[in-house]
């Protein structure tokens, strides 16, 4: 039995979502864009799901654009908004973005910088990952196309002042996108009240299926589509609509929102974080637990350890967590979030993120707390041993 503490990477399907997914997928053919009865039946599902999703997020149904998930939503938001703004006013070609955003935003921004002449102002964050609003206010001006600011950080869990940032941006005539992938289903999210113009979400982070998500687009916001085809979603996002995915996403959000505020999860996280903080050399990163931090997030760096040693040792002990965000290439790089927060590469190397979710239990926390002490001890010895033999050899061969 393993303790799964990597819910920020992906969490299990909620039973309600699984039921909706299977029920809809089992209905047989039905393209929501078709005019016959099978199509109409699928369309009813998609539209009911759209209404339910909007209701759970304080948005209007017409503001929901279904996508394949967080990365697609971020791409559509950042590239689509940048291109629309630039097309309307060529002088507006600057993007304001904190350096601690998710790669789905950062890499879009860097791509636009490299290929489409975007100018970028990287906004500083403080030692907890919180964006500097004064820097944002200073950078806002006639040349700014958009601001992108995540709702909550995926690594250290720090919640950003999105509403305040949106006010500042709007005062300068600039729209704001928020990547709320980690927030939706974990925090009360009210799109209208937030003032954001665009909001990205991903179903599998709150118990929906992988491959489903949405971009919430405030009425009146112009986006240049990033994929072209059948003209679905008012032409903004072509592609056959996924009725089963939409139904499961809506069901998962409904179940997740019903649990908010999730004091049970917060209680588990507080106990975990307190135990982790007692490990020698542990430093808790991110905002103080409470209203400014994701309820399921615990992030700690361990002095003198390498994250890949820790994840191996914990995995071997049946505790599944991560060093930060999941990395496709598999080569550990120091987290850009921690570097932006001012940590050195050495400090950042010993990072672990534990993230709890809807089906986390006390037993998961117990397992992590039982395993962490010995793992940190051993990982620290491994760091120390690394170069001893080599140094010895080089000293021997020095006269060559």
């Amino acid at each position, binding site marked *: 039995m393993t303790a799964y503490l990597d819910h920020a990477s992906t969490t299990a399907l909620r039973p309600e979502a699984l039921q909706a997914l299977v029920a809809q997928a089992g209905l047989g053919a039905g393209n929501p864009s078709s005019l016959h009865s099978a199509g109409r039946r699928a369309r009813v599902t998609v539209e009911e799901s759209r209404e339910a999703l909007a209701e759970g997020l304080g948005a209007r149904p017409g503001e929901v654009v279904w996508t394949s998930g967080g990365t697609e939503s971020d791409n559509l938001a950042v590239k689509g908004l940048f291109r629309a703004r630039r097309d309307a006013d060529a002088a507006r070609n600057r993007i304001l973005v904190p350096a601690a955003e998710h790669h789905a935003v950062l890499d879009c921004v860097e791509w636009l910088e490299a290929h489409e002449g975007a100018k970028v102002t990287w906004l500083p964050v403080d030692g907890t990952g919180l964006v500097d609003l004064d820097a944002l206010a200073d950078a806002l001006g006639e040349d700014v196309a958009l601001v992108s600011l995540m709702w909550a950080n995926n690594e250290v869990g720090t919640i950003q002042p999105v509403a305040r940032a949106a006010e500042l941006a709007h005062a300068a005539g600039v729209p704001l996108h928020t990547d709320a992938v980690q927030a939706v289903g974990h925090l009360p999210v009210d799109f209208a009240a937030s003032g954001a113009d665009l909001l990205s979400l991903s179903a599998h982070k709150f118990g929906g299926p992988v491959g489903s998500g949405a971009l919430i687009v405030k009425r009146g916001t112009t986006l240049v589509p990033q994929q072209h085809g059948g003209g679905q979603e008012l032409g903004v996002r072509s592609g056959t609509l996924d009725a089963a995915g939409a139904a499961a996403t809506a069901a998962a959000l409904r179940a997740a929102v019903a649990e908010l505020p999730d004091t049970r999860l917060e209680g588990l996280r507080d106990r975990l974080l307190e135990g982790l903080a007692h490990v020698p050399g542990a430093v808790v990163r991110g905002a103080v637990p409470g209203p400014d931090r994701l309820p399921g997030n615990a992030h700690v760096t361990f002095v003198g350890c390498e994250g890949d040693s820790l994840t*191996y*040792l914990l*995995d*071997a002990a049946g505790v599944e967590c991560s060093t930060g965000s999941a990395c496709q290439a*598999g080569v*550990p790089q120091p987290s850009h979030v921690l570097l932006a927060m001012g940590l050195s590469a050495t400090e950042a190397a010993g990072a672990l993120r534990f993230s709890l979710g809807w089906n986390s239990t006390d037993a998961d926390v117990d397992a992590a707390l039982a395993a962490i002490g010995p793992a940190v001890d*051993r990982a620290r010895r*491994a760091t120390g041993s690394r170069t001893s*033999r080599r140094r010895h*050899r080089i000293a021997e061969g020095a006269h060559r």
Partner: protein
Amino acid sequence: MRVLAAMSGGVDSAVAAARAVDAGHEVVGVHMALNRNPGTLRTGSRGCCTIEDSLDARRAADLLGIPFYVWDLSDDFVEDVVEDFVAEYAAGRTPNPCVRCNERIKFAALLDKGIALGFDAVATGHYAQIVHGADGRAQLHRAADAAKDQSYVLAVLDEDQVAHAMFPLGDAPTKAEVRAEAERRGLPVAKKPDSHDICFIPDGDTRGFLADKLGEVPGEIVDENGAVLGSHTGTYGFTVGQRKGLGIGRPAPDGRPRYVLSIEPVNRTVTVGPAERLQVKGLVAVDPIWNSPAPAGPTEVHVQVRAHGDPVPAVVELLGEELQVTLRAPLNGVAPGQTVAVYSGTRVLGSATISGTTPVS
């Protein structure tokens, strides 16, 4: 035992890991990321440490049902293997980077980290055998398949390293049999071609790689009497025994081919001469490493000076930290910097780095 299987993404290391699993060990696969530039990790060039290799290794580990990790040892690799390689060429010697990698990466950086994390051994896909002697100590021996034997590149391991090494392919009858075994096991790497070149020079252009690192260092090509025959842009472009690419226009007076006899990086001189002057009857080697008791007094052994060279009978004697090697039969084209591996029968006793040679004539 808890075994760390070094998995390159090739067929040998995948089958080695599979055999370690079959033997009942608790095996964890590790792919070493050795290239410092993450860009090239993603561009899929040939050779080691491309992202494709790491995915092949991961796929094999998944099929074997073992955990798999990528460990970044690129800092160690660049410092201990790549920079050593460049420095050795700059000093007029001929290094073998695979030897260095075994000595300082696979059975040092990787092994040390593994031991610290609770592993007992590192398993690789090398063709060599660990045999336990009457005293219970681990001995390093040649592979069963003489054609694939790789004990030479492992001769730099000391006793402690050998004691923590595992070579599951050592008794494989042939490489073809290992490929067939990979096929039987359903490993997708079964048909993957062997890697040949130096892994950090995937295009095979060693001279160009060195020129990038060392720049132009022009000098003269002379014969044994000091007569200038031509010029070059860097002594690092030459190896003792080299015949092609000397760039000397005129043929020798006697019409016979000329070979590189020696390289003097300080005065930037490459000396060439006839083939018979390449023959050596004795070697001096430094930095000896023994995985067995060091020879006491003159000892009859066999020595081997390159990975796929034939062993030659010789007498070795340790004088201080210097190994004197008297060859019973002459060797051709031996370059300073090469490793001389010392064998007793099939057993590797140790090795040293060649620092000088005694010509036959």
